[in-house]
């Protein structure tokens, strides 16, 4: 049979009234189309859903920050009334008593109720304002080991009042407030 769409020319011969039954092609086409839709959707969806790792959720950061804040807070609480807190005594000496800070702080953050100890490292310094004026200066207290830049560290801070009898950030024998800052990270 000659159909124009098949590329043969109609030459005027008699056209027969024969029709191909294309009813079923409908199903095939619809089936393929539906299949394509589903596959494309699946592809988009699977690409779009992200998988979160533990680091993305910042849980360990939160735990570390709470622990560090607690430890600094405890160090700034005197054991008895009228006593001085350990943190105040450490900063109130020239130079700051890094050895004492190291012992006390590591004991507090690495102590566990069960067996064994945690492995948390830190770097501590304090920042004060140079009086008079608005500039600030930073002084090292101590560190457990040098931070190599690869670890993800968290910063915790604590306000400490001191009254040093030696020249301190521009004043002597004056009540001053400094910010003790500690960077902590887990090994």
């Amino acid at each position, binding site marked *: 049979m000659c159909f124009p769409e098949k590329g043969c020319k109609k030459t005027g011969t008699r056209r027969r009234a024969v029709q191909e039954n294309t*009813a079923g092609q*409908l*199903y095939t*086409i*619809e*089936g393929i*189309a*539906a*299949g394509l*839709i*589903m596959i494309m*959707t*699946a592809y988009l*969806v699977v690409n*779009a*859903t*992200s*998988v*979160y790792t533990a680091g*993305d*959720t*910042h*849980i360990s*950061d*939160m735990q570390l*920050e*709470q622990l560090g*804040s607690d430890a600094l*807070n405890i160090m700034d609480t005197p054991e008895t009334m009228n006593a001085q807190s350990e943190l105040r005594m450490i900063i109130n000496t020239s130079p700051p008593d890094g050895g004492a800070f190291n012992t006390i702080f590591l004991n507090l953050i690495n102590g566990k109720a069960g067996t064994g100890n945690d492995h948390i490292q830190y770097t501590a310094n304090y*920042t*004060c*304002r140079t*009086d008079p004026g*608005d500039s*600030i200066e930073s002084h090292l207290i101590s560190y457990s080991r040098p931070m190599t830049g690869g670890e993800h560290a968290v910063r*915790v*801070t*604590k*306000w400490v*009042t001191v009254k040093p009898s030696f020249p301190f950030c521009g*004043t002597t024998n*004056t*009540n*001053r*407030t*400094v*910010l003790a*800052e500690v960077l902590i990270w887990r090994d």
Partner: protein
Amino acid sequence: MARLNDDAQWIILMGFLISFSFFFLAIIINQSTVVGQTTAESVIEFPKNDIRDLRGIIEQSANMPYPDNATVNKDITVLSMNRKNAIVKYSVFPPNLPSNPHTTASIHYNNGVTTFYENWTSL
């Protein structure tokens, strides 16, 4: 006029149904993994320890004599701005005997995300 043969449209509809449920499932799953993230982030973001710390230090400074209390005030304001990215402004008012035997302070704190304001009275 011949009607469009829509006998097989149910296959396409099934296809669409599956796709839409897939999308819905994906949305739900996406939301669930975000749950834990926002929990920890919201804990970190809220400056609970900073505010408690600040109240404690202001309470200590309330007992200091002049001019130490002014020095400490400037210390806290400058260091907060520089190191904590927070604006702190506070004023301490001594007791106004005999009507008010308590020391009071008004504290303002703003770290860009959280604002805190308190009228503190000593015991």
